């Protein structure tokens, strides 16, 4: 499979290089759907200029990247395009290897369950065969690299590409079972933007499963593993934060990066839900609603972890989707990462109910975003309500997509336990409803 993957990488890099040389690059790097105040390349250049002048790059409320990024680009600013293309390539290869490893484990678990005769007889058509799973890693890499959202994000030189690379490396090291690397990459991802903190739970569940530690509150091995992982995670986070302090010599970056993400002072329109709400809000209630919106991102960890504790990789997918939808400054690059996982669940398509509606709404909203932006900002005929309506519709469609996959996944698990053709107690046919 190395040859098709290499071909795919070459095609992807060619497309990006061609777009970098065209006149579209400037246009795309200004679109608010693709760049946010956290990830814009213009701001990185501004921060680098301030650093060269000897002033703290965080003075002036323009630059909101972490110090490690600024030092990375201090050396790589001339090769910025290559850096972002390399980040995309790393993400794709990491996702490819992840899905290959995951498929192996899925198939092995399925073989054990078949030998132990745990599946009812009529759900044999739900069993997956290696033949159908053979092309899935390539499809995942293709979904990531050739997704127009990813291409736009790369051409705009949005640092979201780097965030995605770190997250995919975290997922790869988790799936391979390497506890230390998983903790280190997760701490890097959390250091960049706070929200990957929620992926801790899924990483813990997966690693415990892999090391055959039972997930039981009363067992000492469970708590001991948690303590180990937390030590590694918090330790590397501490080291990285202190390293940032020593790089720039001040703690300025803490309010500029984390304070910015959490307190949402910049209300530039984007594809998220925060900007319009907080533009309309009275100051008196701002803190309350800020807490509500931020807790909303973290809150789904607990119920999802309890429900999906047997399936931690699906939990990672759900968490990534929840983070991309509900974070304070989302961009289309975040969406591209969780959409890359969709081929892994392609065997669920017979249980998906709303996929046509969701696809149509997502395509229509993606087409309408620039139209309504033009109508609002340039023509003056519309106003922010129109743009926020499309934002809301886009997010509702994403939530519907994620909940549809959740339903399909749970339904397949249910059928694998109880058989495909369900009968009620009196023998009539029953239907499954997700309440």
């Amino acid at each position, binding site marked *: 499979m190395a040859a098709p993957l290499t071909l795919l990488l070459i095609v992807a890099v060619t497309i990006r290089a061609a777009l970098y040389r065209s006149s579209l690059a400037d246009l795309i790097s200004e679109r608010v759907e693709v760049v946010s105040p956290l990830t814009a390349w213009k701001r990185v250049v501004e921060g680098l200029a301030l650093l060269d002048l000897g002033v703290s790059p965080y003075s002036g409320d323009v630059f909101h990247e972490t110090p490690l990024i600024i030092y990375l680009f201090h050396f790589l600013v001339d090769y910025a395009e290559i850096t972002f293309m390399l980040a995309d390539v790393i993400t794709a290869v990491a996702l490819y290897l992840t899905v290959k490893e995951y498929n192996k484990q899925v198939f092995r678990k399925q073989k054990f369950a078949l030998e132990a005769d745990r599946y009812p007889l009529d759900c044999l058509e739900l069993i997956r065969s290696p033949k159908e799973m053979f092309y899935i890693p390539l499809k995942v890499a293709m979904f990531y690299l050739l997704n127009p959202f990813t291409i736009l994000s790369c051409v705009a030189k949005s640092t979201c590409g780097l965030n995605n690379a770190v997250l995919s490396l975290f997922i790869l090291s988790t799936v391979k079972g390497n506890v230390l690397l998983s903790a280190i990459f997760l701490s890097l991802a959390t250091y960049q933007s706070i929200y990957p903190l929620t992926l801790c739970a899924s990483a813990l569940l997966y690693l415990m499963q892999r090391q055959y530690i039972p997930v039981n509150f009363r067992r000492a091995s469970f708590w001991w593993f948690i303590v180990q992982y937390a030590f590694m995670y918090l330790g590397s986070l501490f080291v990285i934060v202190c390293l940032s302090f020593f790089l720039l010599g001040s703690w300025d970056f803490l309010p500029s990066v984390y304070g910015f993400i959490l307190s949402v002072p910049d209300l530039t329109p984007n594809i998220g839900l925060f900007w319009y709400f907080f533009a309309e809000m009275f100051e008196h209630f701002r803190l309350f609603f800020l807490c509500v919106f931020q807790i909303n991102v973290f809150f789904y960890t607990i119920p999802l972890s309890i429900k999906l504790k047997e399936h931690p990789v699906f939990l990672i997918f759900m968490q990534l989707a929840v983070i991309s939808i509900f974070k304070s400054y989302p961009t289309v690059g975040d969406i591209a990462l969780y959409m890359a996982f969709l081929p892994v669940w392609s065997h669920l398509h017979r249980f998906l*109910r709303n996929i046509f509606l969701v696809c149509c709404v997502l395509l229509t909203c993606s087409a309408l975003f620039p139209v309504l932006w033009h109508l609002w900002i340039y023509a003056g005929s519309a106003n922010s309500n129109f743009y926020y309506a499309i934002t809301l519709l886009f997010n509702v469609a994403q939530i519907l997509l994620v909940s549809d996959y959740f339903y399909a996944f749970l339904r397949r698990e249910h059928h694998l336990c109880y058989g495909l053709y369900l009968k009620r107690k009196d023998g009539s046919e029953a239907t499954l409803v997700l309440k």
Partner: protein
Amino acid sequence: MGLLSDPNRRRALISLLTRLNAPICVVCYMAGVAWFMGLAFEPFTLRTYMSENAMGSTMVEERFPAGERALATGREFAAHKKKAGGMPVDWLVKTMQSHGLEVFTQRFSRTLPFPDENKERYMVKGTNVYGILRAPRASRTEALVLSAPCTPGDNNNQAVGLLLGLAQYFRSQVFWAKDIIFLVNEHDLIGMQAWLEGYHHTNTTGMDWSPLQGRGGSIQAALSLELSSDVITSLDLVLEGLNGQLPNLDLVNLFYAFCQKIGVLCTTQGKLQRNDWDSVSGYSHAVQTMMLMVMKQASGRSWGDHGLFLRYHIEAATIKGINSFRQYKTDITTIGRLMEGMYRKLNNLLERLHQSYFFYLMPSLSHFVSIGYYMPAFGLLAVILLLRALDLWVQLTAPPPRTEDGVVDPEQMSSPGVLSVLTPLVISHLTGVALYTLPIRFQEMAVEHFPVSETEAVVLTAIAVYTAGLALPHNTNR
């Protein structure tokens, strides 16, 4: 999300959809067309009303006296225009300066994509002349524009004459809060675009123009005047701009209010409003007016010099004087008073016109249909596409019929994969891209190598792409 998650209700709805698909589509189509036609029926429309508060209260007494002098100036302009063979720049500059305006000129030139039929030239050169009347007691932050085109031949002389007469009259008044720019543009839309690009420091068309030496602040509204006769019988308002963009409805309301006050007949689309809306001929007259507006918007081109202002978020309209066979004639003094009144009202604006509608249709000047009323007609037509798509989707994913012993025929299980759908999609898009970019690219190359003219090269390339597209169904079917 009850509808999307409850399987029983879903199944009932989907079976209804597939059974009654064709009848529902036909009903939607007829309803859409009937709705649209019904929009011109007067009880379904709303009377126009002034939405902007700043323009509501002040109706002043207009006192413009110098109609005859304006006509004389117009005749002088015509003579100088004939002598100069184009725009009489020096005479205009001198006249405007003598009226007390700050006068500036702008040269522009544009290479036409196709040669001019009359003279076989590629390049159009011209000069715009504009004078700025500075507001006596205000800072130079806002401006209004009055423009008249300089067309060759005997057209629009009276318009330029009236413009200069108004400039002289306005100069003597002290209550102007905004700068007024009096613009005479050459070569209609090309000159106007050069002026607007120079004013706003943009260059979207690649034209060559000299930078403007004098500016007046951000333009709040603009009116373009076209008058080719000494007396008129009616005034026609032209609204449609580039790509069908319309000015704010408040500008139309302003014009209509002043025509009522002064007693001038006003028309839109060249059609006079009728009172007998309940008769068949009256209704068809309203329908014709509305459909003319729709077709003019659909053509995409600007129907007056004002159309280019709309892209810069400046509300503008063109007022044309029409001289037809009616008994009651209006003279230039009255038109001058109307323009004076309109500019006095626009002078009172605190912010740009934004209160009223931007998207509307007018069956007559006193009635309008807003987008909230005409969009459902279009929505009904679009719903048909959605219903057909849903029907096809349901048929594709319906479970195959079982045979009697419960074994499903495996041949019917395969639904078409994504790849087979992707091929015609990609080919169609590539054809569209080819049609968009190839004719222009091939134009120069074709003229070099083949004995065709530019227009023929473009048309032949388009025909070639269309002919290649005839093979599309063969390529996409297996």
